[in-house]
């Protein structure tokens, strides 16, 4: 066990925890931020995507000891009212079916747009390729990223 300082969505936390614990489970079990989802546990599906600084990362394989004092943004940190341009684009295109993967999809999209504010279709597809949507909403995801980029 170790005391670790975290900065999540602009708030500071101190957790006393096994330093190998992935960020995903710290968020979900210890900080009650359950918007970030568990899908595979091995960085293969993208459901657990969060931002570390401006980078979209898979929180299910990221040990909490690696993110001490770094800025983490989760889906809850974008806008609680759904006012972030990417959230608004998701609502405009009514993307979700079951909705389980969408927090991860949105965080990957936010990561992409921070690096490349006006991505082309192929760039969007490549950046979003790591996020599985079992319901198959990929076309609406692509359209929503495009809308967010143009907003």
């Amino acid at each position, binding site marked *: 066990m170790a005391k670790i300082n975290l900065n999540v969505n602009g708030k500071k936390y101190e957790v006393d925890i096994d330093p190998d614990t992935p960020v995903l489970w710290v968020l979900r079990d*210890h900080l009650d931020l359950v918007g970030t989802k568990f899908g595979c546990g091995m960085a293969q599906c993208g459901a657990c995507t969060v931002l570390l600084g401006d980078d979209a990362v898979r929180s299910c394989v990221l040990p909490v000891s690696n993110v001490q004092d770094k800025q983490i943004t*989760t889906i809850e940190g974008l806008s609680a009212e759904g006012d972030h341009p990417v959230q608004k684009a998701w609502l405009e295109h*009514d993307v979700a079916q079951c909705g*389980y993967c969408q927090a991860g999809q949105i965080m990957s999209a936010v990561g992409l747009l921070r690096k490349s504010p006006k991505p082309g279709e192929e760039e969007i597809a490549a950046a979003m390729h790591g*996020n599985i949507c*079992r319901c198959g909403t*990929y076309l609406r995801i692509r359209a929503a990223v495009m809308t967010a980029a143009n907003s």
Partner: protein
Amino acid sequence: MISNIQIMTAQPNINRRKFLKVTALAGGGMMLSFNWLAGCNPTPDEVLAMPKEWFSLNSYIKIGENGIVTLMAPNPEFGTNLKTSLPMILADELDVDWKNVIVEQADFYPERFERQFTGGSQSVRMGWKILRTAGSTARKMLVNAASKKWNIPAEEIATSAGMLIHSASGKKAGYGEMASFAATLPVPDNVPFKNVKDFKIIRTSRKNVEGKNIVTGKPLFSIDHKQEGMLIAMIVHPPAFGLKVKSLDEALVKSMPGIKDVFVIKTLEDGYEHNAFDTTSFYELPVVVGNSTWEVMQAKKQLKVEWEEAQEKKVTVLGWGGNKEDVVIPAGRESTETQRKKMMAMSGKPGKELRRDGDPEKAFKNAAKVIERTYTAPYLAHNTMEPVNCFAHVTADKAELYGPIQAPEFIMKTLVARLGLPKEKIHISLARMGGGFGLRAYGHHFVEAAVISQKLNAPVKLVYTREDDMTYGIYRPTYTATYRAGLDKDNNLIAFHVRGGGIPEHPVEPNRFPAGAVDNYLAEGWEIKSNITIGAFRAPRSNFIAGAEQSFLDELAELAGKDPIEFRLELLRRNKNNPVGKNNAYDPGRYAGVLELVREKSGWTKPQENVSRGVAAYFCHNTYVAQVLDMKMKDGTPVVEKVTAAVDCGIVVNPDSAANMGEGGIVDGIGNALFGEMTFDNGIPAKNNFHQYRMIRQKEAPKAIEVHFVPNDEDPTGLGEPLFPPTFAAVANALYRATGKRYYEQPFSKQINSRQPLL
């Protein structure tokens, strides 16, 4: 192990008692539903304040004194957007403004709601009359209330968007003003429905009522649930089908940090009479329980379990219609290769005859050309993105459960038997599901969570890892089908034979097209038992047989020298003008309608350069679908440029949401046709996570999908499943034109000579 599960499709009788005033709506259990206004983002002045008091007009409808309306979404939601579309039906007949509607997910209350089952693409179809009755009856009660208060005949009172209006006198009142009085009035009988031409909400696109909660990461799923004192439980299931637990060495794991207990549970007791959805892969399961998910995961990896070969097991299954069947679960450890050999041997022998028209043997003898082709498909894992999980809190005198379940009425029966509690003491809250696809019809996770909680006398959340989820079983069965057809010298289809089988069920639908359009027809089925568990998977059986049949018809049209759409239309005309046999499952006019619409919308008659096109059509779940898939090859890899679909599902309740469902079905179909596969080696599932099990991803999705609905006023039919099955053949037929090779074995990506690198 339980084969041929038929989803009940008979229209239910509407139980009028359920429309009577409900006085005690606040039932026991947890309040886990989330409320919001359905109109997504109304401005504050558009939104009335929350009411001080609610008045129930029936189980589905509550009206506040200020006119705000709560509509119950009776069916569990797994992503088909029922939580929006079912209340839209209520709202339209009630005649309220959608922006003043709050939608609430109903808990499982069979005494209040009809058919709280999501599956078989039946929710809108089966709910149509029930919800229209609930809405129109409540509206009439409000009209009757105004009639009495104003002393004006009810016939003279109109409604509009939550207002009661008497135009002659100029009297007006909001529903909220009349609700308390209306709730005391008798429930009227035989209230007429709205004319479909007068729909104001149905047939308009309304956004997902959960949209904002989804994009802001609210805790919508049972895996997100947490409460005081809750423990986390995980199972350690046998690594192979055909194995069971012999012993475990729990000492080491019990002392690991955060671990509370380690034990073996019995899921279903010996001698228990199973219902149709009681499929369970393992009757005994080692369980690790602790404080946090990560700690339990770590302990689970360290748990040493000794496994032994399971013996043959006999169970009694009470199927649909009350038929009891003794099912033998065989012993042994199976492999894909040995299963394949068994299936090939069976497909060479006559099966059980399912339908016969004319004299097929003689017709084949007299045919000028005969063609025979065999199609195969592997087991598929559902791979819902939310892994299997369930919350349970079982004490000596009651049980509370909250989890993903499509068929709560069945799991309630199981829980009553397993927990020894009467059903009145068991409360099931219906969680939003992170995908369903048939998997969540099987509530083994409810039993496991409840048994663990009962043993510990504590609230418990059971969570499967992805590996547990993918290797647990309840797969789409593996199938094969051999098709044979005979053409006369003028290339008319004179004989047709399908022989299909699978482990453990056959996929043949003997009365579907082209049955009824061919004079000499034979359908046969055969089955092989197995201990690898199977279950419903998006469009059971159709999800294989549509692809096989429609690939075969494509090849047959080519042999006959006919355009594949025209060839199908010719057969449908034959059925319409002079049907063969009586028991034909489809309407040839509506079937032809989708083919004609897709021909027009896809520009079928004007081929594009370098684009290879495949067409397929299918009827299942009461809905007709035709698709044209446009493909290009890029570096030897297929790229789907566009899919054009034509759908006849009657009245479309929520058009944009329906299109979303269609797009999803097509993407899912392309993915499973190209990549979907679970194999076994000595009973062990060969894939356990997404690094091995290939799912369709963003770059492989079509560049464009168009879903066109046939405009008509027929009552609505299914939409969650019907777009999925024909896609397999649209892919195969396009691939043939792109590569010059026919594709008989799924997944097709293994048959394409190309670089198909995993990520």
